[in-house]
């Protein structure tokens, strides 16, 4: 094993994903500890240009027609070869639809450990956020190559931008694929574009029923904004996917993000952490969203909404 740190670059339809730059920032912190090189691993077809802004010492570029679009098994095969041959000290993947498909299977295939949901490298320790952000865990690098999946929060993408780095082509072999991409299906056209709203009244599971959404809508109407939501509200079918904030939904930066009954799981926070003013209303004093918000109110949201509506009406 050597001391190098690999970062598996994620890209989709010609764009490098922000998580790739975040991983490069974390990888730099880890490489400083191990004394190795920071290498970005870029897989694709005619994708070399994507290496340009990667703040890595080197880009290992694996070109193959089967890697033109992401599929789990093509990426897995390519990376299993590369990692077992070169034995880096650690390899970062996004805790994303791309990274987790690959990191999990590689851990089992190569029998090496995988640390999930890392948000930060701190003094060489891998710091993870689990249990919806309620628990932190610190893990050391193992004696073998350690795989790490990364969530945003600890680094800004700008910290991983730089370059252009040296690009070194590497051979990759891919055969007998079991997964194939048929097509991309574009998101449905939204009735409201929550990324453009100045005020979002955002509701979570604490809203309890679809009927209660009208309470949030009344607030949104008064403040000239729209209603957005956490994933469970959308999974219940109470609001369309276009209203979802977070990892699988939209990233929003409104002037006011008023969260009603949202716990603040990392998957939600990644979509709204950059909002200008976050106000969290939650009955649980230990809700992780209170660690992100500027203001917090620890009450039953149903006791607060009516007085709040009255106070706003009186103030207008």
């Amino acid at each position, binding site marked *: 094993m050597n001391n190098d740190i690999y970062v598996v670059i994620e890209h*989709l339809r010609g764009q490098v994903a922000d998580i790739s730059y975040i991983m490069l920032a974390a990888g730099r912190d880890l490489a400083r500890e191990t004394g190795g090189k920071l290498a970005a691993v870029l897989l694709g077809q005619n994708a070399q240009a994507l290496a340009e802004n990667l703040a890595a010492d080197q880009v290992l570029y694996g070109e193959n027609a089967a890697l033109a679009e992401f599929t789990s098994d093509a990426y897995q095969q390519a990376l299993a070869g590369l990692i077992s041959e070169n034995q880096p000290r650690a390899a970062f993947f996004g805790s994303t639809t791309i990274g987790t498909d690959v990191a999990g*299977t590689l851990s089992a295939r190569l029998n090496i450990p995988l640390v999930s949901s890392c948000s930060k490298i701190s003094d060489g320790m891998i710091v993870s956020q689990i249990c919806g952000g309620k*628990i932190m865990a610190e893990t050391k690098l193992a004696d073998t190559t350690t795989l790490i999946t990364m969530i945003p929060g600890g680094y800004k993408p700008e910290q991983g931008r730089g370059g252009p780095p040296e690009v070194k082509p590497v051979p990759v072999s891919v055969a007998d694929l079991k*997964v194939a991409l*048929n097509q*991309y299906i574009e998101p*449905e056209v939204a009735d409201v574009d929550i990324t453009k709203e100045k005020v979002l009244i955002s509701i979570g599971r604490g809203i309890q029923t679809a009927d209660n959404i009208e309470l949030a809508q009344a607030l949104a109407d008064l403040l000239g904004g729209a209603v957005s939501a956490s994933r469970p509200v959308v999974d219940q079918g109470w609001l369309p996917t276009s209203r979802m904030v977070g990892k699988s939904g939209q990233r929003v930066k409104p002037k006011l993000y008023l969260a009603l009954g949202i716990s603040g799981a990392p998957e939600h926070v990644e979509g709204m952490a950059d909002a200008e003013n976050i106000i969290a209303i939650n009955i649980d004093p230990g809700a992780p969203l209170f660690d992100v918000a500027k203001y917090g109110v620890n009450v039953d949201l149903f006791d607060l909404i009516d007085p709040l509506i009255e106070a706003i009406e009186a103030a207008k």
Partner: protein
Amino acid sequence: MTHILVPVKLVPDLVEELQIAGSGNALDMTWLRLIISEFDDHAIEQAIILKERSGGEVTVIAPDQEGMDDVLFTAAAKGADRITKLSGDFGEGFNNHALARAFASAVEGLAPDLILTGVQGNNDLDGSVGPCLAEYLGMAYVGYVAGVSLEGGKAVIKKEYPGGLIAEMEVALPAVLGIQAAEQPPRYVAVSKVRQMMKETSIVEIDAGDLDPSGGLDVSRMYLPEAAERAEMLQGNEKEVAARLVEIFKEIGVI
């Protein structure tokens, strides 16, 4: 006939306060309330939707954790044909590598065409069960799945990308899919129906033998988050808080 297997597990109920064990590197299990992992619940729902749509059989399999019987009988009440429990040392915490190996050894006798499991559990730290299980069985894995249909030896799936983008993919069967969301929200069943299942069905037990946690992690420390900047908490009764919120809305210019 298509046989769909759904491996599920219990995870901490995050509504409760979580505590760290005396060892300093694990959750305190003593007071922990466990519930079915939300995404495993979606996996059960998706399996039953597939069965209702195109026939087949659904088996739900789970480690013998405290409270699991209720979860399994609930799955039967929803429409699972068989409920199975892995007996083994699942009491004091186990990692996902060990659980995936235990599932894999049981799967060989069950010969499923398709395995659906939750994409993630809220306490996953050494990766998730699905990808490990797929690899131990030599099957393909795709996660973040929110829609499955079966067409001639293949699963056609909808894989979620950020922002609502979907990748439609084809996966050769047998395969393991990590379910993010079922096509419909998990159905509710009446308690009376679950009770009826307790009388009419029984849980098949399979011995998982000794667990093998290799590939798992050596956690140095677990702790509660220490926020650098916590929110300023607004105090007072609802009226006072409402008045203060209105002031804040004015300060930031939304009123």
